[in-house]
């Protein structure tokens, strides 16, 4: 069985950034990615990022992906990348089982960084399994990575940043976005994204959601309705809308099942997106030498995932006896960057969620 110093599960922004800093500190790592390419969800994000220059603000997500991939390629002697490989088992003795095509393999690691990201949440309504109903991020992949359109007439459910951004990108690709539905009183995402849509004439309707999908083997129509103060549909307000695609953008859940599998103590923190591993200030879980970075320990933006990746890479390297030459300065810098990214009103969820995770806030 091959033994690695560090195995990083997930080749997205957090995993790639962790590998980079670990390599700079002199550590060898293996990055495992289940998709056939690395870069995570950045590879489909054509919009420019916010934040500061250190997290590549004003750069398109697709270009940030290239930067992070190039960073990893600069350390061919230190970083090995395995794509098309799914981690199917993670055990307390640090044995990792992999599925590669039809072959199972076993490897071992001295330390592990779980950087598996998050998956899109689903929404319960009648016929929600009809083909033509997609996660908004999935549609973004289909059109921005593969250049294929999901349909002609689309309705978006959810007005968080993903819902707003993907709606705009659908319009850029020539798709008619009929409306964006938001169950809450107000639009969830940044005003700048919502304003772009409104300028294009897209109808953003608050206090409305999808009640059922209509179609035999594929989606043809949806029924939408108003919601009352307790988020229940108001009878008699139903309207039918002809659509051939419906995008669901109602948040993300951390993909934290591997952390639970290896025995990390978990906590359900809705503000962080769901079930997350309990971590200390160094991003280490309750299982020694198992660290986490990115959305798996709380859903945020890719900018935060990048910095958390750097941070976890720095900490793991130190643990395994490869203290980075700039350890103290880097540590302070990454901590400041994370504080800054979480400072505004949109960072409140993460700030409160992290307090709750640490047991410093009770709900």
């Amino acid at each position, binding site marked *: 069985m091959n033994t690695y110093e560090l195995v990083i599960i997930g080749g997205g922004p957090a995993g790639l950034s962790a590998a980079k800093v670990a390599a700079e500190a002199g550590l060898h790592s293996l990055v495992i990615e289940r998709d056939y390419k690395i870069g995570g969800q950045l590879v489909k994000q054509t919009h420019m990022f916010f934040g500061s220059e250190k997290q590549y603000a004003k750069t398109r997500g697709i270009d940030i992906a290239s930067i992070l991939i190039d960073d990893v390629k600069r350390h061919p002697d230190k970083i090995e990348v395995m794509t098309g490989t799914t981690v199917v088992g993670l055990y307390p003795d640090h044995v990792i089982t992999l599925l590669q095509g039809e072959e199972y393999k076993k490897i071992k690691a001295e330390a592990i960084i779980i950087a598996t990201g998050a998956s899109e949440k689903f929404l319960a309504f009648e016929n929600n399994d009809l083909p033509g109903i*997609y996660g908004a991020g*999935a549609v973004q992949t289909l059109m921005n990575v593969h250049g294929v359109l999901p349909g002609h007439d689309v309705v978006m459910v959810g007005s968080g940043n993903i819902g707003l951004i993907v709606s705009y990108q659908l319009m850029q690709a020539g798709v008619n976005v009929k409306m964006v539905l938001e169950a809450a009183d107000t639009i969830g995402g940044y005003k700048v994204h919502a304003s772009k849509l409104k300028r294009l004439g897209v109808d953003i309707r608050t206090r409305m959601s999808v009640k059922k999908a209509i179609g035999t083997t594929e989606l043809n129509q949806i029924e939408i309705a108003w919601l009352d103060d307790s988020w229940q549909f108001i009878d008699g307000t139903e309207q039918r809308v002809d659509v051939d695609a419906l995008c669901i953008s109602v948040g993300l859940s951390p993909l934290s099942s591997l952390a639970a599998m290896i025995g990390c103590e978990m906590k359900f923190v809705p503000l962080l997106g769901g079930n997350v591993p309990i971590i200390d200030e160094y991003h280490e879980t309750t299982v020694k030498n198992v660290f986490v970075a990115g959305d798996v320990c709380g859903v945020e933006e890719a900018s935060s995932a990048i910095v958390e990746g750097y941070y976890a890479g720095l900490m793991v390297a130190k643990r395994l006896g490869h203290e980075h030459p700039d350890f103290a300065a880097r540590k302070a810098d990454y901590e400041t960057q994370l504080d800054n990214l979480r400072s505004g009103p949109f960072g409140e969820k993460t700030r409160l969620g992290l307090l709750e995770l640490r047991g410093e806030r009770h709900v």
Partner: protein
Amino acid sequence: MRIQQHPILQFPHDQVIHFTFDGKPVAGIAGDTIASALHNLGVRVLSHSVEKGRARGFYCAIGNCASCNMIVDGVPNVRTCITPLKEGMVVKTQRNKGVLHEHL
């Protein structure tokens, strides 16, 4: 349906990849996954639920939800959203949990 013009992205449509879908000869292009090639052909029903036989399409595009599982070259439960299309692939709609393929 492929994007013809885009303000930011370019999609070269040059290298054609031939495969079969439920016995019919069809084609995609280099860079496609199986699911994206089928979507371009207007095929959105990729699998069926096991008990009620309800039609399923792809949902997550990250290999997580199992809604796009198909039989590819005799192997069931292939996550077509993260599997690159290859020349000569034999792709079939899946209607059950998947059976071990013949040579195993």
